[in-house]
């Protein structure tokens, strides 16, 4: 058995100690990352048990949505299909994983109440569970990405290393946002609705369905100050063989550092209390 057989829990000993304990929780969760993986896998398998296509059902419906929106909006915006279709496909798939991870983040601790109140499992394990679950789903949706890239020939000009870097930044940033809403939602039960409406308006304000170059320069703040735009752009642009502006990566790196420092501090300060919120 790989479980540690020694457990020590102590009272408050100042701020530094709380950070140490939070870090210990993080380390324990990484050492038992296979547990988070099992939980994530369990979620995916049990959700789709009995359906033949499994999570590919979502992929299928997503694919139909891509087709519909691609054809309709391409016509409305008068953009050639071979350009608009891959744009919308990549947008829907990657923006989908961003919003799903954040929205499901709200339930992370609430859903795990039973386990948290009678075991000493690391709390970070449940954050990874939510993130990994969405990555498993993303792995299914990659089918759409591949299909579009191959069909429209973008696979030849795509810049894969930059796209991978973009996906890395996407995961790192989405993970902290997911954790942030997990903690706040445990404390305040009306947060999930607020988060849902934020991600919903983000889907409209971010160029998922519309082309960013159509926006007049005076409204450029909608793009530059929009974290979702940068998250999406860092993955989508390289896959379509376009360059990513350096300030996008600077924005994402800064956001990751600030976000994680913030969330980790919040976690260090609320870690003892989270189980009582539930």
């Amino acid at each position, binding site marked *: 058995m790989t479980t540690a057989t020694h457990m020590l*829990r102590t009272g408050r000993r100042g701020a530094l100690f709380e950070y140490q304990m939070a870090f210990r929780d993080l380390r324990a969760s990484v050492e038992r990352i296979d547990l988070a993986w099992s939980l994530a896998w369990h979620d995916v398998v049990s959700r789709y048990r009995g359906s033949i296509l499994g999570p590919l059902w979502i992929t299928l419906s997503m694919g139909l949505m891509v087709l519909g929106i691609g054809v309709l909006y391409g016509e409305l915006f008068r953009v050639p299909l071979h350009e608009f279709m891959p744009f919308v496909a990549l947008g829907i798939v990657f923006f989908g994983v961003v919003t799903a991870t954040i929205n499901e983040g709200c339930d992370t601790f609430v859903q795990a109440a039973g386990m948290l109140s009678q075991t000493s499992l690391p709390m970070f394990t449940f954050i990874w569970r939510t993130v990994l679950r969405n990555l498993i789903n993303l792995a299914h949706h990659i089918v759409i990405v591949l299909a579009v890239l191959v069909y429209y020939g973008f696979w030849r000009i795509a810049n894969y290393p930059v796209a991978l870097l973009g996906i890395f930044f996407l995961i790192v940033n989405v993970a902290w946002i997911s954790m942030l809403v997990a903690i706040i939602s445990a404390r305040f039960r009306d947060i999930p609705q607020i988060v849902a409406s934020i991600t919903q308006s983000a889907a409209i304000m971010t160029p998922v369905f519309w082309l960013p170059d159509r926006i007049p320069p005076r409204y450029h703040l909608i793009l530059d100050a929009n974290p979702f735009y940068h998250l999406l752009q860092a993955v989508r642009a390289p896959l379509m063989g376009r360059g990513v502006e350096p300030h996008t990566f600077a924005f994402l790196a800064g956001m990751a550092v600030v976000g994680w420092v913030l969330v980790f501090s919040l976690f260090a300060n609320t870690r003892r209390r989270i189980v009582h919120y539930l």
Partner: protein
Amino acid sequence: MKPPPVSISCKDLTLRFPVYGVDAKSLKKHLAKIAVGGRLGSHHGSAEVTAISNLSLELKAGDRLGLVGHNGSGKTTLLRALSGAYEPDEGSIEVQGHIAALLDLNLGIDPTATGMDNIRLRGRIAGLTAREVDERLPEIAEFSGLGAFLEMPVKTYSAGMQARLAFAAATAVEADVLLMDEWIAVGDADFQKIAHKRLLKLVERAGILVLASHDVELLRLYCNKVMRMDGGVASPVTDIKKLDELLAA
């Protein structure tokens, strides 16, 4: 290397709870309160309850401790603290050995998943590797007596079947330290008999048992020591023979 002997050691353990009312759980109401400027009541509209105060406890292998006390006296809180779920506000808890908490069997059961998936999940959480879980799966499945139902979602089970599943899954892992909130009696008469046997085996194998119960006969049967909780304050640990005196006090 020989592992250190099984033990539980609590020193000056104090646990306080914030109790969040419905209002305290709403951010909108929170903000409204700030806007209006009225800060009625205590800390953010939540009261603080001291669930356990200054408890010290030393247990070693072979100890079978019974916890007695009225509802709300802190028995379950102590068990949850020993399981590692609740962090002490003051003092410390140190446990050597693998802990299994049978506090609320149904917690952690996923009603939309099948019985088999739930057993796997429970085993993984208890610290088994995926392979170890697979090895024990047939035995757990057989013990639960649910047969073909194990392939169906748990939400389709009757209450008794759910209890069988939860019990079979939760008791499949041996532990050095066993924490129990009331002696678990589940299922129909037949199942109760075999469940009882299984629990006894688990208790025998465990180095330490901590059992919270209102059933005096039960405590006499399984425990050799007893401690009384009263409003979060614990009595000294005494021999089970003095249970009557302890209860009368």
